[in-house]
């Protein structure tokens, strides 16, 4: 899950910190710069592991601060492909199941990677979901929901609370295994994508502001997961007791 990344950077120490030990000032500056931030094509930086090498520090004309070139190693969250991770379900949407690890939130399991057959519940109003709810929970009181769905009331359907359901077939009939919010899931990392969210130049900024639309905030680092194998999915599905 975590890797060590070797990096080189120039750290600026302002003069009022000259009384502190150089190593401590540099460690603090590096953590201030990188902790909890995503570096493009590297991962989510957690904290400084150690400083490997400190080169000579220079003071430049017009600036009283010292600049030091530092070789250091940083702990970065960057799961490798096909790694198994355990996270909590944060929510379900038509895009899939959103999983979070606490310190990292942008994990998505798309509908095609869920245990099949799967469907989104509750469905659109007008179609009544049939099937036995003999599975892991009693039938939810959803009669009320279907009758008074937000769409029916004219509210936007984003407010509809939906969960993904695994329709597990056995000889007795279909069990409905719900993927509720807050449940722990074991999933496999199948893909990652880095987006460069550096600010753009003035010309594109003008175009954005003139159209009076807030640019969509994209997560700089997202993971795609899959739970379509035996053993994956909610932990409660696979515990033998």
């Amino acid at each position, binding site marked *: *899950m*975590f*890797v*060590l*990344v*070797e*990096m*080189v*950077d*120039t750290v600026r120490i302002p003069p009022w910190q000259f009384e502190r030990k150089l190593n401590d000032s540099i460690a*603090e500056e590096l*953590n*201030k710069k990188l*902790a*909890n*931030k995503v*570096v493009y*094509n*590297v*991962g989510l930086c*957690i*904290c400084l*592991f150690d400083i490997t090498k400190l*080169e*000579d*520090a*220079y*003071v*430049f*004309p*017009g600036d009283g601060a010292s*600049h030091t*070139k530092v*070789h250091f*190693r940083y*702990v*970065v*969250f*960057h799961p*490798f492909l*096909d*790694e*198994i991770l*355990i996270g909590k379900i944060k929510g379900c949407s038509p895009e899939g199941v959103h999983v979070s*690890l*606490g*310190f990292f939130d942008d994990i998505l399991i798309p509908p095609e990677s869920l245990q099949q057959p799967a469907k989104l519940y509750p469905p659109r109003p007008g179609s009544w979901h049939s099937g036995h709810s003999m599975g892991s929970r009693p039938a939810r009181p959803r009669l009320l929901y279907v009758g008074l769905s937000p769409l029916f009331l004219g509210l936007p359907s984003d407010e509809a609370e939906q969960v993904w359901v695994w329709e597990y077939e056995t000889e007795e009939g279909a069990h409905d295994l719900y993927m509720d919010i807050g449940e722990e899931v*074991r999933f*496999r990392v199948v893909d990652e994508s880095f987006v460069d969210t550096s600010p753009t130049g003035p010309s594109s900024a003008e175009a954005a502001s003139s159209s009076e639309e807030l640019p969509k905030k994209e997560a700089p680092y997202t993971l795609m997961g899959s739970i379509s*194998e*035996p*053993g*994956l999915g909610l932990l409660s599905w*696979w515990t*033998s007791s």
Partner: protein
Amino acid sequence: MARGARPARGPAGVLQAPGVHRGDPGVHRGARSRLWGVRRGAGSRSFSAWSSACAGDPRRRGGEDMEVKDANAALLSNYEVFQLLTDLKEQRKESGKNKHSSGQQNLNTITYETLKYISKTPCKHQSPEIVREFLTAMKSHKLTKAEKLQLLNHRPVTAVEIQLMVEESEERLTEEQIEALLHTVTSILPAGPEAEQQQNASDDVAMDEEDPA
């Protein structure tokens, strides 16, 4: 005028002083002695030659960016990260004063969340000796580094979990080997006090049942 600098009026009438150059408002003799890396006796009078004598001046070259030398230098187990963050937390608690400045908030957040996440895994109860023992025991099973790391981080207890973490386990491991692997994992890696209590409770029940016999 800086102390000790005696400007001499040169023939051109331009104010000249050793080590001070026109266009350098902030730099005077005192500051120059604090400059590290500048060759002493760089007597050149032109600004560009003098500042290029300061090796590695980033502003002249347009700034040095941060460079990633190796994005995958080593893999870390959850236990190592847990240890690192706990030590960091202890250190920062001792130093005390500067934790709450806005710059440190990111570090606080990420260490708190990551520590919270790892504390819920069995890695919390490991130690360097346990990890070393685990790796020596794993040598016989011929697994890749990534597979051993996953076994260490997750502590699987069922064959299904082993099949997830070990690639092509049907071809590489027989059923007895999977059982042996499970046994090694569960015996060497600690599960955590709650799970052990449950284990002890079920063992006691079994012992009571054997007594009458």
